[in-house]
């Protein structure tokens, strides 16, 4: 298998889906002529034409609203919101309309759409272009939520998302587009389930998206001293937590690493579940390692300091497992 990038894996998923199913359409700002703000959809407009690759005005609420209407009437729209930071403009369409239609209408009208977007830090893009807002979506029954952290998942999860009968929010990470890897012939784990990225008996680290990569780097550095089991949550809503709980019951320790503001985050949800389900197996409380509870500052140094990295994950892991206190806890 040849190496490709996260970006190209996404493109490939879109191409394959659009080749296979002519009801799939793309719509969003700059998805056509420009090729996508992060270059994911380059060439799509030429290949599929303006009826299927639709450049829109800068009207996020109506983009999502239009996608909903298209989904209700037989198409499979993949709408794009350029930054997840703009979620605040579309949460009504997303949470009150897309997520609730099937339920409110007694099962009659599904909304099989994908909302593609990207989030996270790494580009000094400041407080309104660097957020991780998946917690808002995870708190919304009726939405599905995926955040791929590997190249293979970028492909397979997006393909799976485009086959779902329900709305899927698909959040990419701006810091992963150039990451290289292989697209597996089959998905690393079934749709909707976590993937165990590394086996180990000392500590379970749960993560997803870019923080998965930081976690894997840390796990590598920790081995063989500390054997880390790395669980990639991938599909956050509805969350199949079984594999994570199995892991924590084996290791007795759980660290959850995310990039979002920690308070009321996905990490908090995972921690709550771990303590509910693994209480008697825990050697240590489940710990959250997340973004600081602040807006993202533009200064590159401050931005970096505001979220976890492999080094910090290592520090906490060593302390949790081996009681080695890091320098910052002196």
């Amino acid at each position, binding site marked *: 298998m040849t190496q490709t990038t996260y970006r190209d894996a996404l493109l490939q998923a879109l191409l394959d889906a659009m080749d296979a199913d002519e009801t799939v359409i793309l719509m969003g700002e700059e998805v056509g002529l420009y090729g996508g703000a992060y270059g994911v959809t380059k060439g799509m407009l030429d290949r599929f034409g303006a009826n299927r690759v639709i450049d829109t005005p800068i*009207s996020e609420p109506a983009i999502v609203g239009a996608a909903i209407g298209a989904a209700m*009437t037989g198409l499979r*729209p993949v709408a794009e919101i350029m930054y997840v930071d703009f979620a605040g403009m579309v949460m009504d369409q997303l949470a009150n309309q897309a997520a609730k*239609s099937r339920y409110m209408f007694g099962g*009659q009208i599904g909304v099989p759409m994908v909302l593609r977007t990207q989030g996270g830090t790494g580009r000094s893009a400041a407080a309104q272009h660097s957020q991780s807002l998946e917690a808002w979506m995870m708190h919304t*029954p009726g939405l*599905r939520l995926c955040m791929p952290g590997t190249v293979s998942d970028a492909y397979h999860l997006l393909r799976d998302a485009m086959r779902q009968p329900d709305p899927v929010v698909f959040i990419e990470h701006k810091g992963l587009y150039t990451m290289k890897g292989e697209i597996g012939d089959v998905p690393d784990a079934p749709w909707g389930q976590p993937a165990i990225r590394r086996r180990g008996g000392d500590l379970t680290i749960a993560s997803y998206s870019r923080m998965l990569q930081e976690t894997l780097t840390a796990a590598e550095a920790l081995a063989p001293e500390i054997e880390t089991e790395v669980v990639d949550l991938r599909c956050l809503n*509805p969350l199949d937590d079984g594999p994570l709980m199995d892991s924590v019951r084996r290791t007795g320790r759980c660290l959850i690493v995310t990039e979002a503001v920690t308070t009321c985050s996905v990490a908090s949800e995972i921690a709550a579940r771990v303590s509910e*389900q693994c209480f008697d197996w825990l050697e240590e409380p489940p710990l959250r390692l997340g973004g600081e509870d602040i807006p993202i500052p533009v200064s590159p140094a401050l931005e970096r300091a505001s979220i976890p990295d492999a080094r910090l994950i290592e520090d906490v892991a060593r302390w949790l497992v081996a009681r080695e206190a890091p320098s910052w806890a002196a």
Partner: protein
Amino acid sequence: MTFANDAPLARYRTMRRIRTFEERVGELFLKGESAGSMLHLSIGEEAVVGLTDHMAEGDTFTTHHRGHGIFLARGADPMRMLAEIAGREAGYCRGKGGSMHIADRGLGHLGANAIVGGGIPHVVGAGITARNTGTRVVSVAFFGDGGMGQGILYEAMNMAALWKLPVVFCCINNQYGMGTRVDRSAGRQDFPARAEAFGLRAARADGSDVEAVHDAAQAIVEGARDGQPGFMEIDAYRFHGHARMDKSPYRTPEEEEEGRARDPLATARTSLADDTLLDTIDAEAEAEMDTAMKTAIAATPPASDTMFQDVYDPSTPAPRPQRARLADVLEERA
């Protein structure tokens, strides 16, 4: 008795059925059989039938919270509507949606909406579907004058104009958004001018005269079918309070009297002039709605486990009830 479906007499009949239906909704509430009090009657707005009569099978639409009449005009079964409003399993949405969330995919109803403006952009997407699949389907968004305050309307109108979609935006201006008369919510009240500024074909019609609405709507709906999106304002009056608890203390009795004089049913009766026939139609409507009402009230509420159904498609496991979650935790520690 029979008469051509798209004719003044048929329109009178539909308007009468709507009015009688809405009266029954009011009674349902008084009997304590409705699910809640958020019931918005469309009495006074029946002339919307002048527009819906240009819609064909397969056409789709979304409505605002005051959508009973529109859906009846598009073929709804009054019993299933009343059952839904009563929160019964036999309702259009199995008692999950209620008055503000009635929908029926089969009849093209993509959903009533309790978010002012919430359903408007959906017709843009329906328009894309129509364009891409090459049908002649039109999709109509119905909303109130209050919806003119929502930015998403302008975003949607711009898209429809830009892409020349078979879409109509229909504003039923009943002069009020709750207690706010339209002159207290609109900087300028010429709504068709707003639509035109975005590139839509626009018209306004007198909502006390269903035939006038019908005439004006023709070019708008047929234009949309041909790819020229349109906007239509129907100028009406909200006869009653906003919802069932509102006595409209913010309007004068004189204003209400004047407003209620703009009655599309009275106008139609005068022009149709056949009292015997019209009385028969009225009586039929009463009988129909009485039966619907009885059946709806007799229907059973949904079983409590239906609560977990239809959050997702059945291919996804239903959400786990919290009692089951808690039982797991606690049993394990028993």
